[in-house]
């Protein structure tokens, strides 16, 4: 059981790391989508099918598309991608920060007593989820709905340009 887990973990981390280090934006986005699929797999492994389904639908379907659009819309000149000298120092600093963070977290996990009895994979039916959503979490569901619409409109307003000018010209 844990072998499958390890496999999924390695895949996801690998694609994520690759996404972060690729020079070309497109490749990064695609690799990232891959890692999202890894995550979905983990959900499946954990027994939360609906979550996996949602992950795949939203992240892989929608967000990756949005990212692609964003990348395409903003690639005016090639030179954007050449990492300036400043980024060298930044990359090093970033790696250091990430490693420190990971070290701390892993140390905490190692020392932590997260022993847990082996338990069967819990199953949750969509009926249960629906009941839950419509029951105690009805309010938050509505809020999320509102949040999404507002975000949509906000994005459109921001992206549609501030002035009467056509998109892409200098403000």
């Amino acid at each position, binding site marked *: 059981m844990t072998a499958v887990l390890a496999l999924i973990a390695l895949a996801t981390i690998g694609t994520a790391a690759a996404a972060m280090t690729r020079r070309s934006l497109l490749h990064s986005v695609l690799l990232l989508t891959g890692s999202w699929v890894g995550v979905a797999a983990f959900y499946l492994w954990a027994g939360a099918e609906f979550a996996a389904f949602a992950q795949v639908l939203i992240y892989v379907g929608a967000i990756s598309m949005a990212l692609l659009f964003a990348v395409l819309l903003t690639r005016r000149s090639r030179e954007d991608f050449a990492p300036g000298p400043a980024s060298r120092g*930044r990359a090093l600093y970033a790696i250091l*920060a990430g490693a*420190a*963070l990971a070290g*701390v977290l892993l140390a905490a996990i190692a020392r932590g007593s997260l022993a847990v009895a082996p338990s069967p994979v819990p199953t949750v039916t969509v009926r249960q989820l629906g009941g839950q959503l419509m029951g105690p979490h009805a309010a938050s569901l509505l809020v999320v709905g509102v949040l999404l619409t507002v975000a949509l409109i906000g994005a459109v307003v921001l992206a549609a340009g501030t002035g009467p000018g056509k998109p892409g010209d200098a403000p």
Partner: protein
Amino acid sequence: MEPRVAYLWLIPALPLLAAGVGCVAPRNGRRLAAGAAIAAMLGALVLSCFALHLALADPSAHLVYNFRWFDLGNGAVRLGLLLDPLNGLMCVMVSLVGLLIFIFSLGYMDADENFTRFFCFLSLFAAAMLCVVVANSLLLLFIGWELVGLASYLLIGFWFHRPAAAAAAKKAFITTRIGDLGFLLGLVWLYDTTGSLLLYDGGNGVLESHVLGDLATQVLAGGLAASTAIGLLIFCGAVGKSGQFPLHVWLPDAMEGPTPVSALIHAATMVAAGVFLMARIFPLAAADQGLAAAPVHVLTVVAGIGAVTALMGAAIAVAQHDLKRILAFSTVSQLGYMMLALGVGSWVAAIFHLLTHAFFKALLFLGAGSVIHAAHHEQDIRNLGGLRSPMRATYATFSVGMMALTGVPFVFSGFWSKEAILHAASEWNVSHLPLYAGLAGVVLTAFYMTRLLCEVFWGAPRSPAAAHAHESPAVMTVPLVVLAVGAVALGFLGTPAWPWLQSQLTGEAVPAHSLLEGGGLMALSIVLVATGLGAGWALYGRRLRATAGADDPLAAAAPRLFAFLGARMKLDELYAATVGRLNTFAAALAVILDRWVWGGAVGFLARFGEFTGSVNRGVDEGGLNAGFDSISERIRGAGRAYSRAQTGETHGYLRALAVAFVVLALLALLGGGQ
């Protein structure tokens, strides 16, 4: 309560009415004012005669009419009118002498443009004096007393445009006011202890027996009887008003007023008010005679003051040059005699002398007035002289008055009344000093009167004014004659052989005794009068002073004594040095106290207020504001420092987050431990 006594208030009311008419009358309403005044006095005289007749019907009775003035607390303040022989006689005397003087002043004041105002004031004076005389309540008497003081102030200062007259008026008012304060305190003390000021009030009047009894028995600290203290305080008023020793300084200066005023007020009536007052309250004054243990008796003090005044007045009169001042000091001396008589216990002799004195002293003053009038207001005897031939009538009446005053035996009233006083003094058991003072006074009186007579009437006129003096008009000489008759006739009312007056006054029959019985004393006094006259004639009669400048024979004999007496024994300077300086010191003290002590305290508070104000501002601005300002400044600085952290670098923020997270996690891992 005698109904007929009710109309007694008319006697003072008539002159008061005349005074009202006088002051309302316009300046040129001379006839109206004078007529009203004289009519009023005539009316008062007639009413007084009726009153006297009524009083003499029963000499021992005190007819009383009391009425309520205003209510106070549970009771009320009551005043009253009194009629008995003493009052009756005084009323008649005042109104008769007043009438004569009014008539005289018709002529004397004829030239004065304030004629109406003069008569208004004279009527006011007469009303006040009559009010004093008829009063049964000491309060009403005090009211009349002060109004008499006011009238004398107004009349002395009648020619107020002359500073000397103004000063004299002020001096008179203030000096008598000092005496009146003592009178007021005595009054108030009496009112407080006995609850009423009525003299005779059907048994519980002040002078009635049982009230007097407990007054005498009420002993204060130092063994002094209450009645003694009250008597002495009331005597202060008499001393002030009658010009007795300590407070006599105003009388000679009062001669600044017109001569009829001097005659009426400073000879006959007002100054006599003091004697009348003491006679009126004689029972009160005599109440403490019984207390042998008492340290001082009222009557002894009165006798003492009387004797001193008699002697001193006569002595000073010898060395005066002003005609009216000689008479003034003579009045002071005669009043001393009356007080002496009261002191030695015989108020009847005092009143008898008062009556006779009123007539002949008024006569002398009016005579002097007609002399001054004739000699164009020349008053210095050194400039007069030789008026015998031009002014025969004045000379004749003046000499009658002079002989009455000196006490030429048997014929003149002065002799009998002075004799009565000396007789009473001789019978006084306390001491014989008053008697000797009286006898010495007789000599001095005779001396200065002859000096006056010789200087003014005999010899040759020594100044142009005196040279063409001419006899005064009839309106002035007729009163002189009437007064001269009075000066002679009045004596016979009270001779030892026929003591009608004494019996009327005391109310019980006084035994008549023959002349010889008191003969020794009478003979002595006759001899003394003779010596006085002789000495006067010897010094001034034989060698008449030729010129005004010639020095006075007596001055040649004893220059320093003469100068000392001439300067009125320097009493004025003494008073100025003591009381005057004390007064100015007290005034200066009050002003200094006000400006520096109380004003200073307020000033200090004000400056203290300013100081706290400025401290407060300093603290407020320096401490608080500055403190707040600096703190807020620092906070702004800190704010600016933090704001630099907002570089806008998103990465920076992320980095900070990461670092913070790591640090926190480490802390949780290492620090927590539990």
